[in-house]
């Protein structure tokens, strides 16, 4: 508290230095995706392992879970597609990203001073983004094939078996990725507000995405709006 007070007294404006990161549309889009993903995770895991079958209770029982899971998937695909359209441009890989990956030790330790200055997303976020896009596409396609209620018989049973295997394996990968994503959000304090309030503090941006901050501050954005 003391520090805060002190800070306030020294630089009253600091607390008000906020940078817009996501406008409302993007935030809603993200949370729809997040909620759908969570529901998919829960309903999927319910059918993935018998020990988690009790999770079906959240979806009106086994049949309900079986029935609704693919519809969540449809929602996820649509929702994620919108996210994708908004974010894909910011997720091109560059030299800094490679450097970032090389210094992953520093990243894990939270020592970011020796990292290159980063634009809106760091390499980790980009990896999450692209992998998630790939996983969702695979999950959707394989899910469609094993969605017996409407797509019975469109492929052979053997292909069906492959699809089921791939679907579950990819789903696990996607969940792991989600854990990374969520944990990153929690670990890196000040991140969550970007998706709840839509902005971050200047300090957060300085610390994690300085290149982005500089551009924001310049007001010039080569790629158009900075808001996703």
């Amino acid at each position: 508290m003391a520090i805060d007070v002190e800070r306030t007294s020294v630089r009253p404006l600091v607390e008000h230095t906020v940078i817009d990161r996501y406008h409302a549309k993007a935030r809603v889009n993200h949370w729809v995706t997040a909620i759908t993903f969570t529901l998919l995770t829960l309903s999927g895991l319910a059918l993935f392992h018998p020990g988690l079958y009790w999770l079906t209770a959240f979806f009106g029982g086994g049949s309900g879970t079986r029935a609704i899971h693919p519809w969540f998937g449809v929602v996820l695909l649509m929702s994620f597609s919108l996210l994708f359209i908004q974010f894909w441009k910011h997720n091109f890989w560059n030299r800094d990203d490679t450097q970032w990956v090389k210094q992953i030790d520093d990243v894990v330790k939270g020592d970011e001073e020796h990292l290159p200055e980063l634009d809106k997303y760091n390499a980790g976020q980009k990896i999450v983004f692209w992998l998630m896009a790939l996983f969702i596409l695979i999950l959707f396609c394989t899910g469609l094939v094993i969605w017996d209620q409407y797509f019975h018989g469109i492929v052979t049973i053997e292909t069906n078996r492959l699809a089921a295997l791939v679907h579950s394996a990819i789903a696990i990968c996607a969940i792991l990725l989600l854990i990374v994503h969520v944990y990153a959000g929690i670990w890196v304090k000040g991140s969550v507000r970007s998706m709840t309030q839509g902005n971050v503090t200047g300090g957060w941006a300085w610390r994690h995405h300085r290149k982005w901050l500089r551009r924001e501050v310049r007001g010039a954005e080569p790629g158009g709006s900075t808001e996703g």
Partner: protein
Amino acid sequence: MIGEFSRRQFLRTAGAGIAGTTLGAMGFGGAEQALAQAVRPFRLAQTTETRNTCPYCSVACGIIMYGLGDRSRNTQASLIHIEGDPDHPVNRGTLCPKGAALLDFVKADTRLKHPMYRKPGSDKFERVTWDFALDRIARLMKDDRDANFIEKNKDGVTVNRWTTTGFLAASATTNETATLTYKVVRSAGMLVFDNQARV
């Protein structure tokens, strides 16, 4: 306390409840559940059995008809199943695809339930009473017999025949029905009389 709380929250959101449920995944869930699977109860346990013979071919397999109802005064029997009679020396409980489906014969949609009558030139049946049908049939028979009965042939031999009305008997009726049919048909002097035996 607040830190403690947030840790739990973290686990729930990030791990989707995994930690708690991995225990379940080790197999402690199923064993505790009441296993409610049930074999369908044997559905002939309390039925009334009646012996009969398959009405189709001449192997004449023994069948057992399982009826709802215990033959008490106030219950109307209804068939629910038919199966082969294991005692029968020929079929020994077996049945062919026809015999095995006899229940659906008894209960066919096209079973007739009421006497029907079609007027000359009409394009439909209409429902009539038994009395109407039987009176009318008997009248038509008598009129035809009286008009066309031949008592003597051209050589003067007594022939007493009536050949303008004929009768096809059914070779799936009982001997007893056949006996009564024979008596009625022959006593009227009919000669145009046959059954499936030579078809």
